[in-house]
């Protein structure tokens, strides 16, 4: 594990009010399951750098919308474009590499892997080592000075050995596999610290407390270095204090330059953190605007705000 001070500082990008650029466009998406219309020609877009809330009563099609965006479902008609490129028809892992990542409403971690390994699966998506690379380690990369093996021993055979290793690495380079493993571990550790659960890095995901699991999902999603992070009810089951923490976390994620799409039931949380809100009902969009506008929209009030906001 690397030291605290080697952590690269997260890039800080302020929320840009400047020229608005659509990061993701959802263009007239229609999705039918047999006879049931799950999404009925929905269109909206997400601007780079914003936090967009996607709300609606249960069964309104929020998660379905996520699933279309991340390639789990293919829309019957319409298209999803990410930075101008069509997303529809691509496989989930390709979409992930384009820069869209997500968390799941019902936590879906890899329960038997440690927290660190969970995040490493995410970071792996930016790496190239496959079977030949891991087996033969022939592909060599010239390491940066800080990546060279350290010489720590004060003397004796051990020191000679470490020096030998260092000079070998200098001359022949290090295998990409090893560098990537190290980078993945560092990056994963950094993300665990970022979401605040680094203390349990080596525990299996299944042994983590609920709140940690939610955060771990976010860290894992961030591991894929997304441009757009979709959070599916991240605050479900949280108490007010935890929700407050989460709010801060979401803002900090945005500050890293990641656009956030947030599905949430808790209106207070949504109102407090989002720049804009899209409201769905029965698979159709009924409102789209700034939080205070949306909260005044009579259709929204009728459809959604009128109901008690349960956290189911």
């Amino acid at each position, binding site marked *: 594990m690397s030291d605290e001070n080697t952590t690269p500082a997260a890039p800080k990008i302020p929320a840009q009010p400047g020229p608005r650029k659509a990061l993701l466009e959802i263009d007239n998406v229609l999705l039918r399951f047999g006879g049931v219309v799950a999404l009925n020609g929905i269109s909206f877009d997400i601007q780079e750098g914003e936090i967009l809330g996607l709300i609606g009563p249960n069964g309104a099609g929020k998660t379905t919308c996520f699933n279309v965006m*991340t390639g*789990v479902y293919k829309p019957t008609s319409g298209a999803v474009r990410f930075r101008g490129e069509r997303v529809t028809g691509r*496989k*989930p*892992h*390709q979409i*992930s*590499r384009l820069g869209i*990542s*997500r968390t*799941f409403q019902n936590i*879906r*971690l*890899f*329960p*038997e*892997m440690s927290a660190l*390994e969970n995040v*490493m*699966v*995410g970071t*792996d*998506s*930016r*790496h190239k*080592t*496959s*079977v030949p690379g*891991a*087996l033969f380690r022939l592909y060599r990369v010239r390491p940066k000075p800080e990546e060279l093996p350290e010489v720590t021993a004060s003397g004796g055979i051990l020191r000679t050995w470490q020096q030998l290793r260092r000079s070998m690495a200098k001359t022949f380079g290090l295998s990409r*596999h090893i560098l*990537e*493993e190290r980078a*993945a571990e560092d990056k994963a550790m950094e993300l665990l610290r970022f979401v605040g659960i680094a203390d349990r890095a080596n525990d*299996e995901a*299944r042994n983590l407390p609920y709140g940690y699991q939610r955060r771990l999902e976010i860290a*894992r*999603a961030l*591991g*894929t270095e997304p441009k757009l992070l979709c959070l599916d009810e991240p605050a479900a089951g949280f108490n007010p204090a935890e929700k407050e923490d989460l709010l801060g976390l979401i803002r900090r994620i945005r500050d890293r330059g990641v656009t956030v799409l947030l599905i949430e039931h808790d209106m207070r949380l949504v109102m407090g953190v989002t720049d804009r809100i899209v409201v769905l009902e029965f698979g159709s969009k009924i409102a789209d605007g700034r939080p205070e506008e949306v909260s005044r929209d009579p259709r929204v009030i009728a459809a959604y705000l009128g109901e008690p906001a349960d956290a189911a």
Partner: protein
Amino acid sequence: MIDKIRDLDRSRVNALHSVADRWRALPKWQRGLGFVAFVVFLYYLPLLGIPGLTWLRTDSISGGSNWAGVLFTCAVYVLVAIGLNVVIGLAGLLDLGYIGFFAIGAYAVALFGSVNSPVVKWFQAEFDLPATWAVTWAVCAFIALVLALISGVILGWPTLRLRGDYLAIVTLGFGEIIRIVARNAEGVTRGPQGIAAIPGPEGPPSPDNQVFGLIDVKPWYWLAITVVLIMVFAVRRLEHSRVGRSWLAIREDEDAAAVMGVYPFKFKLWAFAIGAALGGFAGFLFASRYAFIDPTQFNVNLSILFVAMVVVGGSGNMVGVSVGAVLLAYLPERFREIADYRWLAFGLAMVLVMILRPQGLIPSRRRARELKDRAAEAEEAPAHV
């Protein structure tokens, strides 16, 4: 009765775990030394003469097989189990036709390496080669590995998109197809007559061979165990890499893995191909040591035996599957009285292990917890389920 077995089993597993924990607690150099001692012991095994342990030898009974010969079989099966473990234990794909890859490896060396084979004869006639010409053993090894790998990809490409249980049946069919083709394509494989004079490292079997001779099997065992150790090392490298993590992620939650950027198909195909290559290499060793193969040696029962080795030993764990392989290969040889009942015993073992300890005799800790979790889920679910 069952409760008693369960208790016994629990204390056995606890003992195993405490041994494993102690082992892990040892300093690195001691573990290294222990490992070296174990390897030395493996190489010493065919000479086993420690008083009190000689009864382990299969030739200590009347009508028992050559001890080194049995050890060689065990080593080949361990190699098979390690390969199949990549497919079943790591990637979570049930392959019931693993014998097909084993047969492909065996036939690769037979067809290209033996002067007896129609393929070699065709080469000789076509290129005016002498009647003793055949592809060298080492090249055959390479051919076996590559052919098995390719056949794994060819089989996996269309079938890995299928659901897991369909995959099992399709692979079962594949194993049968390989055997039937080997039997029916007489012009290529000599059909049921089989192919003799398959070469070893020193060329075709002959009384003049100094090391890999006809009578003394020990060098063959040492060769096999060396291959096993190399392959264990290689598979460990994979397990502890991006590839291994991806396999694990796919096994635990394929959809989530895909969303995290893992391309499940690609890694499943790799698992399949690696498994196939290991199986093919095991078949290659098998054929070159026995110097004779015929299609009856690759029947579907053996495929099921391979699966049994993996699941009884403990899928996902190389130590477990190796122990499984050794037990299933060794016990019927040492205890000849039960030889007739071996399939009954294998069947019972599979059922009992699955019901009592689905994670196998020596489970990987991960796998064990995964299954426990599922059981717990079932208990939490409503009572009528």
